[in-house]
């Protein structure tokens, strides 16, 4: 049987640009039309035609490449495409960034008008309310984002003024967090019911949409996605004994009225609402599953019953669209291009909101207390960054896609634990360990908090409750998590060093102690081994130290210390270089100035 040969002319599919396509065409003509055409110089009419065809080929190749590149976030160049793909991957472009920091607030309160006059009148102590506005020297506004209660225990107090014999007033100093910007309002008129209503706000560079209220006074809540119908609400913690631990209690709230915010790179902000109407809200039940089946009419047989997702759309499952009328949108936006300010720059209390626990305070006292309010930022207030570049959007989108806002790995749980908003109570140290004794692959999260004195302490119950609600929102459905207190062991360091002959032993010893104090001023991590060899290295790095003779770790107990026992010798590694620390345990050098002792010879 004769072999059929492919007589089609060879075409180089790798020739995709102008010059290679043109060369291929010329070669093709030379091979297949040697007698019909011979004029291949650049000035010939035939060469002009070759150029035109090669040009078209080049353009087609370019757009094929372009489309392929623009289809993937790694290779896309156009800003709109990158942003759209980033959205598909779950990344949301943040609003105009703001700076934040801590300010010190001062207030002068009259002393008790008694004979001694030695006590401050605590009844007159005000609460500087959240929303008070401060101003910097450069004109940027800053908003207080938490109540500053001058009657709390950790507030510093000193004599403000005296008549020469006794104090007449006391000055109080408390700290509160501020964030850049000022509040604004935009009223949007909605004319008709519209599914997935989108509203583009006229105001640009909005940092945060604070509140949305419709014509009936119903408040709408911001969610990440319209299918998310739960938000965490912060309820003021009024329990006296746990107020210091967690100022707010976290409570999940069902929000049928909700919206998503989309910030565009060009600074515009768009709100998008859901699908359902007010009527759907009244019948706030998940649809009967039998009603959600797509019925096939007109046939006397069934091939399949298909789930009809439109049934869900008719419920409030994507949120409620605001009814026609005015919609009031409150927002926060920066008042200056650069809202990062240096230390001691926020000096004016532009609009204080002052409240008192005691309602019987005379107006004159109220007025003097209010006028005595002062503010200062002892450290820089920073955090504002420029608008996201497309490269940043690309990178962050990939990160967002990888994490999916879900707790999958142990590090995700640790990260989420630390990410819990501070007003719900702060976790200082956390460690996630798989419970090897559990058949359900249970996870144990060991946590420790910090008290007002800066010492590690057991995390208060209220904070653990908040953490439980917080993690529950992110955890995998088949993960079981126990939140447990970490064991805190207070330790001390005893060392002896040999110093150079001509060096002052006291100076060198102080230098050594200070070096160790600086190094161990940060809290250690839970379950992290303690490397004694690091201490040897730090001490030997001091120029005047000839050698470190000995380093000994000792437990500290008694008043002010932890009462958890720990056997140092049993946990010392065989080479004596480090201490084993159980996964549920954290070591703490609580009082470095007295727990780190040394001898210099």
């Amino acid at each position, binding site marked *: 049987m004769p072999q059929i040969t492919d007589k089609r002319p060879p075409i180089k599919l790798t020739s995709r640009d102008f010059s290679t396509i043109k060369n291929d065409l010329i070669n093709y003509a030379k091979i297949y039309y040697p*007698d*019909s*055409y011979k004029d291949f*110089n*650049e*000035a010939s*009419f035939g060469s002009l035609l070759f*150029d035109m065809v*090669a*040009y078209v080929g080049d353009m087609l190749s370019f757009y094929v490449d372009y489309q392929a590149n623009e289809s993937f976030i790694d290779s896309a160049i156009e800003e709109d495409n990158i942003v759209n793909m980033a959205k598909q991957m779950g990344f949301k472009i943040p609003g105009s960034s703001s700076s934040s920091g801590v300010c010190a607030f001062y207030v002068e309160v009259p002393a008790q008008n008694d004979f001694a006059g030695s006590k401050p009148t605590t009844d007159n102590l005000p609460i500087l309310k959240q929303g008070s506005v401060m101003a910097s020297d450069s004109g940027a506004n800053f908003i207080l984002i938490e109540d500053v209660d001058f009657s709390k225990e950790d507030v510093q107090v000193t004599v403000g003024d005296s008549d020469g014999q006794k104090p007449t007033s006391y000055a109080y100093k408390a700290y509160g967090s501020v964030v850049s910007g000022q509040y604004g309002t935009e009223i949007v008129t909605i004319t008709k019911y519209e599914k997935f209503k989108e509203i583009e706000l006229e105001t640009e560079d909005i940092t945060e949409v604070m509140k949305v209220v419709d014509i009936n006074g119903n408040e709408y809540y911001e969610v990440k996605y319209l299918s998310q119908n739960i938000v965490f609400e912060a309820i003021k913690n009024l329990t006296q004994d746990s107020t210091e631990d967690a100022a707010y209690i976290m409570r999940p709230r069902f929000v049928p009225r909700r919206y998503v915010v989309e910030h565009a790179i060009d600074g515009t902000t768009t709100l998008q609402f859901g699908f359902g109407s007010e009527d759907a809200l009244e019948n706030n039940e998940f649809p009967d599953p039998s009603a959600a089946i797509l019925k096939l009419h007109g046939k006397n047989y069934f091939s399949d019953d298909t789930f009809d997702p439109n049934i869900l759309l008719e419920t409030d499952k994507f949120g409620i669209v605001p009814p026609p009328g005015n919609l009031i949108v409150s927002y926060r936006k920066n008042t200056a291009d650069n809202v990062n300010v240096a230390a001691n720059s926020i000096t004016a209390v532009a609009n204080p909101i002052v409240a008192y626990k005691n309602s019987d305070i005379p107006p004159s006292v109220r007025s003097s207390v209010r006028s005595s309010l002062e503010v200062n930022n002892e450290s820089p207030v920073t955090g504002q960054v420029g608008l996201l570049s497309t490269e940043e959007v690309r990178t962050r989108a990939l990160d967002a896609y990888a994490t999916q806002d879900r707790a999958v790995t142990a590090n995700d749980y640790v990260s989420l634990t630390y990410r819990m908003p501070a007003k719900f109570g702060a976790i200082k140290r956390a460690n996630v360990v798989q419970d090897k004794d559990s058949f359900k692959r249970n996870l144990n999260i060991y946590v420790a908090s910090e008290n007002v004195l800066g010492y590690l302490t057991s995390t208060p119950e209220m904070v653990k409750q908040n953490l439980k609600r917080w993690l529950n929102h992110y955890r995998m459905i088949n993960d079981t998590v126990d939140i447990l207190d970490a064991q805190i062991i207070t330790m001390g360091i005893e060392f002896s060093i040999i110093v150079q002959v001509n060096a002052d032993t006291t100076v060198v010893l102080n230098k050594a102690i200070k070096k160790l104090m600086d190094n161990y001023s940060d809290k250690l991590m839970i379950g992290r081994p303690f490397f004694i060899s690091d201490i040897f290295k730090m001490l030997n790095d001091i120029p005047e130290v000839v050698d470190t003779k000995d380093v000994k770790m000792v437990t500290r107990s008694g008043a002010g210390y932890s009462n958890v026992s720990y056997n140092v010798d049993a946990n010392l590694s065989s080479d004596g270089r480090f201490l084993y620390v159980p996964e549920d345990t954290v070591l703490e050098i609580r009082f470095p100035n007295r727990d780190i002792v040394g001898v210099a010879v």
Partner: protein
Amino acid sequence: MAKTRNYKSIGVKLPLAYSEEFGPYSMFTDPLKALKQDFKNLMLTNPGERVMNSDFGAGLGHFLFENKTNETIDNINAAVYGQTAKYLPPIQVLNVDAVFVGNLLRIQIKYFIPDLGLADTLDLNIKDNNIGTI
């Protein structure tokens, strides 16, 4: 049906014209004439006119609106010699004679084709948008 060709054609003859002898369009069979047409194309193409090759073309038509100075004549010479050497190496330019006659730019280019051992002259009369013929 086209007749069987007796000659090996070289290039397309402009302006395009139907030819029973060569198929759809008439073709050059004389290399001297084919090269002369290429030479004329090169001289009258404006730089930037050719796709993907913006340097191509002497653009002699533009010189009509230049000042009637020796410098313009020098520039015409440079364009003719430079473009020919770059894009039409089979042709060796012998002499360029450019003169302004009223509103007319008359350019006469004498050239030699070493491979053929033949010399020829290209006459261009450039007036407004009407480019003169050979």
